[in-house]
Protein backbone atom coordinates (compact mmCIF):
# COMPACT_ATOMS: atom_id res chain seq x y z
CA UNK A 1 0.00 0.00 0.00
CA UNK A 2 1.12 3.58 -0.63
CA UNK A 3 1.41 5.94 2.29
CA UNK A 4 2.75 9.44 2.86
CA UNK A 5 4.75 10.08 6.01
CA UNK A 6 5.88 13.42 7.41
CA UNK A 7 9.32 12.76 8.90
CA UNK A 8 11.44 15.55 10.34
CA UNK A 9 9.51 18.15 8.41
CA UNK A 10 9.77 16.38 5.04
CA UNK A 11 6.97 14.53 3.27
CA UNK A 12 7.94 11.09 1.98
CA UNK A 13 5.84 8.80 -0.22
CA UNK A 14 6.46 5.15 0.40
CA UNK A 15 5.28 1.72 -0.67
CA UNK A 16 4.84 -0.46 2.43
CA UNK A 17 3.20 -3.70 3.54
CA UNK A 18 0.13 -3.25 5.78
CA UNK A 19 1.86 -4.95 8.72
CA UNK A 20 5.00 -2.86 8.51
CA UNK A 21 5.97 -1.14 11.74
CA UNK A 22 7.12 2.46 11.89
CA UNK A 23 10.48 1.43 13.38
CA UNK A 24 11.25 -0.74 10.36
CA UNK A 25 10.10 1.87 7.85
CA UNK A 26 12.36 4.45 9.50
CA UNK A 27 15.41 2.19 9.58
CA UNK A 28 15.04 -0.06 6.54
CA UNK A 29 13.22 2.15 4.05
CA UNK A 30 14.45 5.59 5.06
CA UNK A 31 17.90 4.75 6.41
CA UNK A 32 17.23 6.63 9.63
CA UNK A 33 19.24 4.38 11.92
CA UNK A 34 19.20 6.67 14.93
CA UNK A 35 15.95 5.06 16.08
CA UNK A 36 17.10 1.83 17.68
CA UNK A 37 15.63 -1.66 17.40
CA UNK A 38 15.64 -3.52 20.70
CA UNK A 39 12.81 -5.22 22.62
CA UNK A 40 10.09 -4.85 19.97
CA UNK A 41 7.54 -5.01 22.79
CA UNK A 42 7.16 -1.33 23.59
CA UNK A 43 8.98 -1.82 26.88
CA UNK A 44 12.51 -0.42 26.58
CA UNK A 45 12.04 2.92 24.79
CA UNK A 46 15.10 2.57 22.55
CA UNK A 47 12.81 3.06 19.55
CA UNK A 48 11.17 6.24 20.87
CA UNK A 49 10.17 8.85 18.32
CA UNK A 50 7.93 11.90 18.69
CA UNK A 51 4.57 11.76 16.93
CA UNK A 52 2.44 14.93 16.99
CA UNK A 53 4.40 16.17 19.98
CA UNK A 54 4.16 12.94 21.99
CA UNK A 55 6.84 10.37 22.72
CA UNK A 56 5.84 6.99 21.26
CA UNK A 57 7.46 3.54 20.88
CA UNK A 58 7.84 3.18 17.12
CA UNK A 59 8.27 -0.61 17.39
CA UNK A 60 4.57 -1.09 18.15
CA UNK A 61 3.15 1.53 15.80
CA UNK A 62 1.90 0.46 12.38
CA UNK A 63 3.42 2.85 9.86
CA UNK A 64 0.11 3.07 8.01
CA UNK A 65 -1.60 4.35 11.16
CA UNK A 66 0.49 7.54 11.38
CA UNK A 67 0.06 8.80 7.84
CA UNK A 68 -1.18 12.27 8.73
CA UNK A 69 1.06 12.77 11.74
CA UNK A 70 4.23 14.82 12.24
CA UNK A 71 7.02 12.41 13.14
CA UNK A 72 10.36 13.48 14.60
CA UNK A 73 13.32 11.13 14.88
CA UNK A 74 16.64 11.86 16.55
CA UNK A 75 18.03 12.90 13.18
CA UNK A 76 15.48 15.71 13.09
CA UNK A 77 16.73 17.35 16.25
CA UNK A 78 19.96 18.82 15.04
CA UNK A 79 20.08 21.51 12.40
CA UNK A 80 22.97 20.77 10.06
CA UNK A 81 25.98 20.63 12.41
CA UNK A 82 24.17 22.54 15.11
CA UNK A 83 23.09 20.23 17.93
CA UNK A 84 19.85 20.70 19.83
CA UNK A 85 20.33 22.04 23.39
CA UNK A 86 19.22 18.66 24.78
CA UNK A 87 21.92 16.90 22.76
CA UNK A 88 24.52 19.41 23.99
CA UNK A 89 23.38 18.98 27.56
CA UNK A 90 23.72 15.18 27.30
CA UNK A 91 27.27 15.67 26.06
CA UNK A 92 28.12 18.19 28.73
CA UNK A 93 26.68 16.14 31.60
CA UNK A 94 27.87 12.69 30.40
CA UNK A 95 24.29 11.51 29.92
CA UNK A 96 25.45 8.84 27.48
CA UNK A 97 27.86 5.89 27.69
CA UNK A 98 27.29 3.25 25.05
CA UNK A 99 24.76 5.54 23.41
CA UNK A 100 22.17 2.92 22.52
CA UNK A 101 19.38 4.32 24.71
CA UNK A 102 20.39 7.91 24.03
CA UNK A 103 18.23 8.78 21.00
CA UNK A 104 15.16 7.51 22.84
CA UNK A 105 16.15 9.28 26.06
CA UNK A 106 16.69 12.56 24.22
CA UNK A 107 13.39 12.36 22.37
CA UNK A 108 11.47 11.50 25.55
CA UNK A 109 13.22 14.48 27.16
CA UNK A 110 12.27 16.74 24.26
CA UNK A 111 8.64 15.64 24.42
CA UNK A 112 8.70 16.48 28.14
CA UNK A 113 10.43 19.86 27.86
CA UNK A 114 8.26 20.99 24.96
CA UNK A 115 5.18 20.63 27.20
CA UNK A 116 6.77 21.26 30.61
CA UNK A 117 9.84 23.55 30.33
CA UNK A 118 10.59 23.44 34.08
CA UNK A 119 10.00 19.86 35.19
CA UNK A 120 10.73 18.66 38.69
CA UNK A 121 13.03 15.70 39.15
CA UNK A 122 10.02 13.45 39.71
CA UNK A 123 8.42 14.69 36.50
CA UNK A 124 11.65 13.94 34.61
CA UNK A 125 11.71 10.42 36.07
CA UNK A 126 8.09 9.78 35.08
CA UNK A 127 8.72 11.10 31.56
CA UNK A 128 11.75 8.83 31.18
CA UNK A 129 10.28 5.79 32.95
CA UNK A 130 9.69 4.14 29.58
CA UNK A 131 13.38 4.42 28.59
CA UNK A 132 15.79 1.86 29.95
CA UNK A 133 19.53 2.47 30.28
CA UNK A 134 21.92 -0.32 31.24
CA UNK A 135 25.02 1.84 31.51
CA UNK A 136 24.65 5.12 33.32
CA UNK A 137 22.55 4.44 36.42
CA UNK A 138 20.31 7.30 35.20
CA UNK A 139 21.83 10.00 37.47
CA UNK A 140 23.67 11.76 34.63
CA UNK A 141 20.68 11.39 32.34
CA UNK A 142 18.50 13.24 34.85
CA UNK A 143 21.21 15.91 35.26
CA UNK A 144 21.35 16.26 31.49
CA UNK A 145 17.62 16.91 31.29
CA UNK A 146 17.82 19.48 34.12
CA UNK A 147 20.73 21.18 32.37
CA UNK A 148 18.87 21.14 29.06
CA UNK A 149 15.81 22.73 30.67
CA UNK A 150 17.92 25.55 32.10
CA UNK A 151 19.87 25.97 28.87
CA UNK A 152 16.71 26.26 26.79
CA UNK A 153 15.27 28.82 29.20
CA UNK A 154 18.47 30.87 29.39
CA UNK A 155 19.60 30.43 25.81
CA UNK A 156 22.91 29.07 27.17
CA UNK A 157 23.80 27.16 24.03
CA UNK A 158 22.71 29.79 21.54
CA UNK A 159 25.77 30.63 19.45
Amino acid at each position, binding site marked *: *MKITLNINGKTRELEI*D*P*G*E*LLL*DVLRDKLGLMGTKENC*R*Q*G*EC*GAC*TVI*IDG*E*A*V*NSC*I*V*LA*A*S*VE*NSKIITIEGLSSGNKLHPIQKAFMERDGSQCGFCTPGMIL*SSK*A*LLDKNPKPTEDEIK*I*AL*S*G*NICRCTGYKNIISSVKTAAQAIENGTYND
Partner: protein
Amino acid sequence: MLTIEKIFFPKTIHESLTLLSEEKNSMIHAGGTDIIPRLKDNRILSPKLICLNKIEELRYIRKNEYGDTLIGSMATLSDIESDPLTSKYEALLSSINCIGSRQIRNRATLVGNIGNASPAADSIPALIILDAQVLVSSASTSYEIPLLNFILAPGKTVLKPNEMIMEIRIPAINEKFATDFQRLGRRKAVDIATVNASCYLSESGIIKLSVGAVSPVPIRLHELEKEIKAKGPGVLQNIKKITEINPISDIRAENDYREDMARILVKRCVENAIKKLERIK
Protein backbone atom coordinates in the same frame (compact mmCIF):
# COMPACT_ATOMS: atom_id res chain seq x y z
CA MET B 1 6.89 -7.06 9.86
CA LEU B 2 3.62 -8.43 11.16
CA THR B 3 1.63 -11.00 9.28
CA ILE B 4 -1.57 -9.16 8.63
CA GLU B 5 -3.95 -10.27 5.93
CA LYS B 6 -5.50 -6.87 5.38
CA ILE B 7 -5.72 -3.50 7.09
CA PHE B 8 -8.65 -1.10 6.93
CA PHE B 9 -8.78 2.55 7.86
CA PRO B 10 -12.49 3.39 8.12
CA LYS B 11 -13.26 7.08 8.22
CA THR B 12 -16.55 6.82 10.15
CA ILE B 13 -18.04 4.80 13.00
CA HIS B 14 -20.62 3.35 10.61
CA GLU B 15 -17.89 2.18 8.25
CA SER B 16 -15.96 0.51 11.08
CA LEU B 17 -19.05 -1.33 12.36
CA THR B 18 -19.92 -2.48 8.85
CA LEU B 19 -16.40 -3.81 8.34
CA LEU B 20 -16.52 -5.58 11.69
CA SER B 21 -19.72 -7.32 10.58
CA GLU B 22 -18.61 -8.22 7.09
CA GLU B 23 -14.95 -9.10 7.49
CA LYS B 24 -14.45 -12.45 9.17
CA ASN B 25 -11.47 -12.83 11.51
CA SER B 26 -11.13 -9.06 11.87
CA MET B 27 -10.14 -7.19 14.99
CA ILE B 28 -10.14 -3.62 16.15
CA HIS B 29 -6.86 -1.70 16.40
CA ALA B 30 -7.10 1.41 18.59
CA GLY B 31 -3.79 2.29 20.28
CA GLY B 32 -2.29 -1.06 19.33
CA THR B 33 -0.11 -1.29 22.42
CA ASP B 34 -1.54 -4.67 23.43
CA ILE B 35 -2.35 -6.26 20.09
CA ILE B 36 0.82 -5.36 18.19
CA PRO B 37 3.09 -7.29 20.64
CA ARG B 38 0.59 -10.19 20.51
CA LEU B 39 0.62 -10.15 16.72
CA LYS B 40 4.40 -10.05 16.76
CA ASP B 41 4.52 -13.14 18.97
CA ASN B 42 2.01 -14.89 16.72
CA ARG B 43 -0.45 -15.14 19.59
CA ILE B 44 -3.02 -13.84 17.11
CA LEU B 45 -2.72 -15.21 13.60
CA SER B 46 -3.24 -13.38 10.31
CA PRO B 47 -6.05 -11.14 11.33
CA LYS B 48 -7.58 -8.34 9.43
CA LEU B 49 -7.14 -5.13 11.33
CA ILE B 50 -9.74 -2.41 11.47
CA CYS B 51 -7.75 0.64 12.56
CA LEU B 52 -9.77 3.40 14.17
CA ASN B 53 -6.97 5.94 13.96
CA LYS B 54 -8.65 8.07 11.31
CA ILE B 55 -11.96 8.42 13.16
CA GLU B 56 -11.44 11.67 15.09
CA GLU B 57 -15.05 11.60 16.36
CA LEU B 58 -14.13 8.63 18.59
CA ARG B 59 -11.43 10.54 20.44
CA TYR B 60 -13.38 12.51 23.04
CA ILE B 61 -13.93 13.12 26.72
CA ARG B 62 -17.12 15.04 27.39
CA LYS B 63 -20.17 15.31 29.61
CA ASN B 64 -23.70 14.44 28.62
CA GLU B 65 -26.83 16.35 29.67
CA TYR B 66 -27.01 14.38 32.94
CA GLY B 67 -23.48 15.26 33.97
CA ASP B 68 -22.12 11.78 33.20
CA THR B 69 -18.54 11.69 31.93
CA LEU B 70 -18.22 10.00 28.54
CA ILE B 71 -14.87 8.65 27.31
CA GLY B 72 -14.69 7.73 23.62
CA SER B 73 -12.97 4.58 22.42
CA MET B 74 -10.03 6.43 20.88
CA ALA B 75 -9.34 8.68 23.89
CA THR B 76 -5.80 7.84 24.94
CA LEU B 77 -4.66 7.34 28.52
CA SER B 78 -2.66 10.58 28.21
CA ASP B 79 -5.80 12.39 27.02
CA ILE B 80 -7.64 11.22 30.15
CA GLU B 81 -4.73 12.12 32.47
CA SER B 82 -4.72 15.70 31.28
CA ASP B 83 -8.43 16.42 30.79
CA PRO B 84 -10.15 18.65 33.38
CA LEU B 85 -13.35 16.56 33.12
CA THR B 86 -11.61 13.55 34.69
CA SER B 87 -9.57 15.46 37.27
CA LYS B 88 -11.88 14.57 40.18
CA TYR B 89 -11.53 10.81 39.61
CA GLU B 90 -8.33 10.48 41.60
CA ALA B 91 -8.25 6.69 41.68
CA LEU B 92 -8.75 6.50 37.91
CA LEU B 93 -5.93 8.95 37.29
CA SER B 94 -3.63 7.14 39.73
CA SER B 95 -4.39 3.84 38.02
CA ILE B 96 -3.76 5.23 34.55
CA ASN B 97 -0.46 6.69 35.71
CA CYS B 98 0.64 3.14 36.53
CA ILE B 99 -0.04 1.78 33.08
CA GLY B 100 3.03 1.18 30.92
CA SER B 101 5.08 4.30 30.33
CA ARG B 102 4.52 7.78 28.89
CA GLN B 103 5.12 6.36 25.42
CA ILE B 104 2.52 3.65 25.95
CA ARG B 105 -0.03 6.05 27.46
CA ASN B 106 0.32 8.39 24.48
CA ARG B 107 -1.10 5.65 22.22
CA ALA B 108 -3.01 3.24 24.49
CA THR B 109 -6.72 3.78 25.04
CA LEU B 110 -8.80 3.28 28.20
CA VAL B 111 -11.25 1.25 26.16
CA GLY B 112 -8.37 -0.93 24.96
CA ASN B 113 -7.26 -1.56 28.56
CA ILE B 114 -10.79 -2.76 29.30
CA GLY B 115 -11.17 -4.73 26.08
CA ASN B 116 -7.86 -6.53 26.71
CA ALA B 117 -9.53 -7.82 29.90
CA SER B 118 -6.41 -8.67 31.85
CA PRO B 119 -7.22 -9.74 35.43
CA ALA B 120 -4.50 -7.27 36.49
CA ALA B 121 -5.67 -4.33 34.38
CA ASP B 122 -5.06 -1.24 36.47
CA SER B 123 -7.88 0.96 35.20
CA ILE B 124 -10.65 -1.59 35.77
CA PRO B 125 -10.93 -1.56 39.62
CA ALA B 126 -10.78 2.25 39.50
CA LEU B 127 -13.65 2.28 37.00
CA ILE B 128 -15.69 -0.41 38.76
CA ILE B 129 -15.95 1.73 41.92
CA LEU B 130 -17.32 4.55 39.77
CA ASP B 131 -20.04 2.20 38.40
CA ALA B 132 -18.64 2.68 34.92
CA GLN B 133 -20.83 1.49 32.06
CA VAL B 134 -19.61 0.13 28.73
CA LEU B 135 -21.41 1.13 25.52
CA VAL B 136 -21.18 -1.67 22.96
CA SER B 137 -22.24 -1.38 19.33
CA SER B 138 -22.48 -3.52 16.25
CA ALA B 139 -23.81 -2.57 12.82
CA SER B 140 -27.31 -3.51 13.99
CA THR B 141 -27.43 -3.05 17.78
CA SER B 142 -26.26 -0.92 20.63
CA TYR B 143 -26.44 -1.64 24.34
CA GLU B 144 -24.93 -0.62 27.62
CA ILE B 145 -23.55 -3.04 30.22
CA PRO B 146 -21.94 -2.41 33.62
CA LEU B 147 -18.16 -2.81 33.44
CA LEU B 148 -18.46 -5.24 36.35
CA ASN B 149 -20.37 -7.63 34.08
CA PHE B 150 -18.47 -6.89 30.89
CA ILE B 151 -15.44 -9.08 31.60
CA LEU B 152 -16.11 -12.82 31.75
CA ALA B 153 -12.68 -14.40 32.15
CA PRO B 154 -9.01 -13.53 31.61
CA GLY B 155 -8.83 -12.02 28.13
CA LYS B 156 -12.51 -12.63 27.48
CA THR B 157 -15.36 -10.12 27.40
CA VAL B 158 -19.03 -10.22 26.38
CA LEU B 159 -18.12 -8.78 22.97
CA LYS B 160 -19.24 -10.81 19.98
CA PRO B 161 -16.95 -10.80 16.91
CA ASN B 162 -19.06 -8.10 15.22
CA GLU B 163 -19.16 -5.81 18.29
CA MET B 164 -16.89 -3.09 19.57
CA ILE B 165 -16.75 -0.82 22.59
CA MET B 166 -17.83 2.71 21.66
CA GLU B 167 -17.40 4.52 24.94
CA ILE B 168 -17.19 4.31 28.72
CA ARG B 169 -19.77 6.24 30.72
CA ILE B 170 -19.03 7.28 34.30
CA PRO B 171 -22.36 8.22 35.91
CA ALA B 172 -22.55 11.65 37.51
CA ILE B 173 -21.97 11.74 41.26
CA ASN B 174 -24.03 14.37 43.03
CA GLU B 175 -22.46 14.34 46.47
CA LYS B 176 -18.97 14.76 47.88
CA PHE B 177 -16.85 11.67 47.36
CA ALA B 178 -13.29 10.45 47.51
CA THR B 179 -11.49 7.64 45.71
CA ASP B 180 -8.14 5.97 46.16
CA PHE B 181 -6.10 3.48 44.17
CA GLN B 182 -3.29 1.29 45.45
CA ARG B 183 -1.05 -1.00 43.50
CA LEU B 184 1.71 -3.44 44.26
CA GLY B 185 4.20 -4.08 41.49
CA ARG B 186 7.86 -4.85 41.07
CA ARG B 187 8.58 -1.59 39.29
CA LYS B 188 7.06 1.86 39.01
CA ALA B 189 6.53 1.57 35.26
CA VAL B 190 6.22 -0.98 32.46
CA ASP B 191 5.04 -3.63 34.86
CA ILE B 192 1.96 -5.75 35.39
CA ALA B 193 0.33 -5.31 38.83
CA THR B 194 0.86 -8.03 41.40
CA VAL B 195 -2.26 -6.76 43.19
CA ASN B 196 -4.31 -3.61 42.76
CA ALA B 197 -7.20 -2.15 44.73
CA SER B 198 -9.55 0.78 44.60
CA CYS B 199 -11.99 2.41 47.05
CA TYR B 200 -14.89 4.84 46.66
CA LEU B 201 -16.31 6.58 49.71
CA SER B 202 -19.08 9.14 49.68
CA GLU B 203 -20.46 11.71 52.08
CA SER B 204 -23.62 9.65 52.54
CA GLY B 205 -21.61 6.61 53.60
CA ILE B 206 -21.58 4.63 50.36
CA ILE B 207 -18.46 2.49 50.13
CA LYS B 208 -17.33 0.54 47.10
CA LEU B 209 -14.24 -1.64 46.93
CA SER B 210 -12.70 -3.34 43.92
CA VAL B 211 -9.57 -5.45 43.56
CA GLY B 212 -7.65 -6.85 40.61
CA ALA B 213 -5.05 -9.53 39.96
CA VAL B 214 -6.51 -11.66 42.78
CA SER B 215 -9.24 -13.47 40.85
CA PRO B 216 -9.94 -14.35 37.20
CA VAL B 217 -11.54 -10.94 36.69
CA PRO B 218 -11.44 -7.69 38.72
CA ILE B 219 -14.23 -7.83 41.29
CA ARG B 220 -16.28 -5.81 43.79
CA LEU B 221 -15.90 -6.82 47.42
CA HIS B 222 -19.62 -6.75 48.27
CA GLU B 223 -19.31 -8.73 51.53
CA LEU B 224 -16.48 -6.61 52.89
CA GLU B 225 -18.35 -3.45 51.89
CA LYS B 226 -21.40 -4.63 53.91
CA GLU B 227 -19.22 -5.39 56.90
CA ILE B 228 -17.52 -2.01 56.80
CA LYS B 229 -20.86 -0.27 56.40
CA ALA B 230 -22.29 -2.15 59.37
CA LYS B 231 -19.32 -2.08 61.72
CA GLY B 232 -17.07 0.71 60.50
CA PRO B 233 -13.63 0.66 58.83
CA GLY B 234 -12.11 -0.69 62.02
CA VAL B 235 -13.02 -4.20 60.82
CA LEU B 236 -10.11 -3.96 58.41
CA GLN B 237 -7.67 -4.06 61.34
CA ASN B 238 -8.90 -7.51 62.32
CA ILE B 239 -9.65 -9.42 59.14
CA LYS B 240 -7.16 -12.16 58.41
CA LYS B 241 -8.25 -12.73 54.85
CA ILE B 242 -10.63 -11.26 52.27
CA THR B 243 -12.79 -14.30 51.57
CA GLU B 244 -14.16 -13.04 48.26
CA ILE B 245 -10.82 -13.26 46.45
CA ASN B 246 -9.12 -16.31 45.02
CA PRO B 247 -5.62 -15.42 43.90
CA ILE B 248 -3.39 -17.75 41.96
CA SER B 249 0.35 -18.24 42.18
CA ASP B 250 2.24 -17.14 39.10
CA ILE B 251 5.61 -15.71 38.10
CA ARG B 252 4.84 -12.45 39.88
CA ALA B 253 3.75 -13.77 43.30
CA GLU B 254 2.47 -16.70 45.32
CA ASN B 255 -1.24 -16.85 46.14
CA ASP B 256 -0.84 -16.39 49.91
CA TYR B 257 1.34 -13.34 49.35
CA ARG B 258 -1.35 -11.88 47.09
CA GLU B 259 -3.97 -12.57 49.78
CA ASP B 260 -1.87 -10.68 52.35
CA MET B 261 -1.15 -7.81 50.02
CA ALA B 262 -4.78 -7.48 48.90
CA ARG B 263 -5.82 -7.10 52.53
CA ILE B 264 -3.17 -4.41 53.11
CA LEU B 265 -3.91 -2.50 49.89
CA VAL B 266 -7.66 -2.46 50.60
CA LYS B 267 -6.97 -1.19 54.14
CA ARG B 268 -4.74 1.59 52.74
CA CYS B 269 -7.29 2.51 50.10
CA VAL B 270 -10.05 2.85 52.67
CA GLU B 271 -7.88 4.83 55.11
CA ASN B 272 -6.79 7.20 52.34
CA ALA B 273 -10.33 7.66 51.05
CA ILE B 274 -11.52 8.49 54.60
CA LYS B 275 -8.78 11.13 54.99
CA LYS B 276 -9.49 12.62 51.58
CA LEU B 277 -13.23 12.83 52.31
CA GLU B 278 -12.54 14.55 55.64
CA ARG B 279 -10.48 17.17 53.83
CA ILE B 280 -13.23 18.04 51.37
CA LYS B 281 -16.19 17.96 53.76
